């Protein structure tokens, strides 16, 4: 394992400390595990909290700030945070307007957030939640606990965060978050695995000419493994699944080409070159494109495509001002 770290049991807290020291005007760390909140607490608005395991940087701390999240909670690498951490975050940011939890659909995440919610509700804090499940790779069948939440989550933060900033009610903010979830689909792939520091060995292995299609953001297996293809062919494969899952015809969309962590930006742009052409050909209008690292998997090499079907309201909220370390609009 070749990593730029100090000790495997220090990566999470040194990461959070380094993040807070980089952006003190945006972020303040609570004294209860790796929880960051807005340095300037905003009142009179619904407060948003999200989080998950560490290793997805800039998610989730990078999205704390004006127009997005009010708090982010980071568990151990690829492990859900515990309810008490989440609860402390909720308590710190709660306003009269209530709190919305944005959860990615993993058993551990859902349970830990829900427990935190119960704890907060016992204190009289109004809490609602939405569960993001944008990954179309593994089908939502009898044998799964539903689809996984991946990079589309960032659109939920952006859009629900923008509405919350206007002072909208908890129900409205939850409703728009669910509107985003209903309209966003994602799928990813990888050509090189990542290594959880505490594990010390790669999460999976690929041959020199192999790729894993439909991979999750913790390196979970996807639909299948096959011989590496060209960027255009891979892009077409992912787009096919995404476009088959939701009717985007005639719609305006927001597109995110998300790097898994070790993918050069050059390659993400080459992929976007194809995405733009295919969507144009199909008459799907791209209103805005995001290319970069939004929801990573340590040093995994690969990418995901997320496509959000917009309506006038989502469009307006996507464009609304946001000022966070990792997302500015």
């Amino acid at each position, binding site marked *: 394992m070749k990593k730029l770290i100090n000790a495997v049991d220090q990566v999470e807290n040194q990461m959070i400390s380094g993040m807070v020291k980089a952006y003190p005007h945006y972020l303040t760390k609570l004294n209860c595990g790796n929880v960051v909140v807005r340095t300037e607490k905003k009142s009179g608005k619904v407060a948003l909290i999200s989080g998950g395991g560490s290793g997805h940087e800039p998610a989730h701390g990078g999205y704390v700030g004006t127009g997005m999240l009010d708090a982010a909670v980071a*568990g*151990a690498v*690829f*492990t*859900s*945070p*515990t*309810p*008490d*951490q989440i609860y402390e975050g909720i308590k710190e940011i709660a306003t009269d307007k209530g709190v919305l939890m944005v959860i990615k659909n993993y*058993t*551990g995440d859902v*349970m*830990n957030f*829900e*427990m935190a919610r119960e704890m907060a509700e016992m204190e009289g804090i109004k809490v609602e939640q939405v569960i993001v499940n944008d990954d179309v790779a*593994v089908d939502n*069948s*009898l*044998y*799964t*606990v539903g689809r996984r939440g991946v990079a589309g989550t960032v659109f939920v933060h952006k859009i629900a965060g923008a509405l919350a900033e206007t002072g909208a009610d908890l129900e409205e903010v939850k409703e728009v978050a669910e509107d985003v979830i209903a309209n966003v689909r994602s799928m990813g792939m990888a050509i090189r695995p990542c290594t959880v520091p505490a*594990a010390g060995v790669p999460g999976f292995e690929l041959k020199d000419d192999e790729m894993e299609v439909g991979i999750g953001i*913790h390196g*979970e*297996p996807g639909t299948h493994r096959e011989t590496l293809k060209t960027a255009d062919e891979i892009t077409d494969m992912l787009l096919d699944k995404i476009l088959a899952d939701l009717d985007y015809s005639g719609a305006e969309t927001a597109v995110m080409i998300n790097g898994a962590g070790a993918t050069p930006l050059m390659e993400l742009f080459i992929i976007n070159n194809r995405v733009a052409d295919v969507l144009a050909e199909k008459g799907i209008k791209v209103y805005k494109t995001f290319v970069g690292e939004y929801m990573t998997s340590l040093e995994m090499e690969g990418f995901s495509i997320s496509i959000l079907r917009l309506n006038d309201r989502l469009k307006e909220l996507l464009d609304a001002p946001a000022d966070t370390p990792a997302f500015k609009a």
Partner: protein
Amino acid sequence: MDAKKITEILHALSSKIDKEKEFLTELDNVIGDGDHGINMARGFKAVDAKIDTLETEDIGEILRTAGMTLVSTVGGASGPLYGTAFMKAGMTMSKKTQISLSDFLACLNAAVEGVKMRGKSVQGEKTMLDAMIPALEAMNKAIEQGLTSADVLKCGTEAARQGVEYTKTIIATKGRASYLGERSIGHQDPGATSFTNMLEAVYDYITA
């Protein structure tokens, strides 16, 4: 049985889990993400430290504290599940300084309900419930038959072990293993195994 004994039992669970740590992790490696033993051992180590600081006769408080400690140190799926199980058990014992065998079964019943509620799961989904529910049923039956505490617990551990065997035969539909679909068949569930380990520890304690 008083608060002191309950504290001793919790220490016994902790050392049992620590002993089984590698095996539980190996099981989770096959159909999960290979951290169940590590998660559980970390949590019970924290429980060890925490309960020794408690100065209370209230068994409910001790169990609730153990549950909250698990919740705040285990993480992942098993943290909230076992945490909830112990907290719910603790609630049935609120303000009580003695625990009887039927109290114990009420605790276990509350624990099962807690896991079901928290995990939105039922029997037959290849989870810890597949050991917990048969164990509870077997012990309820044994108590009706008027067996001794030791024999009741013996029936319970027997049933739990059978439950673990049963998990090998079914497809996981909850937790990480569910992504494997049919490939999860043939492997025993780590959570069902760790529950069985705990029940064994209780049996060993009361028969020692």
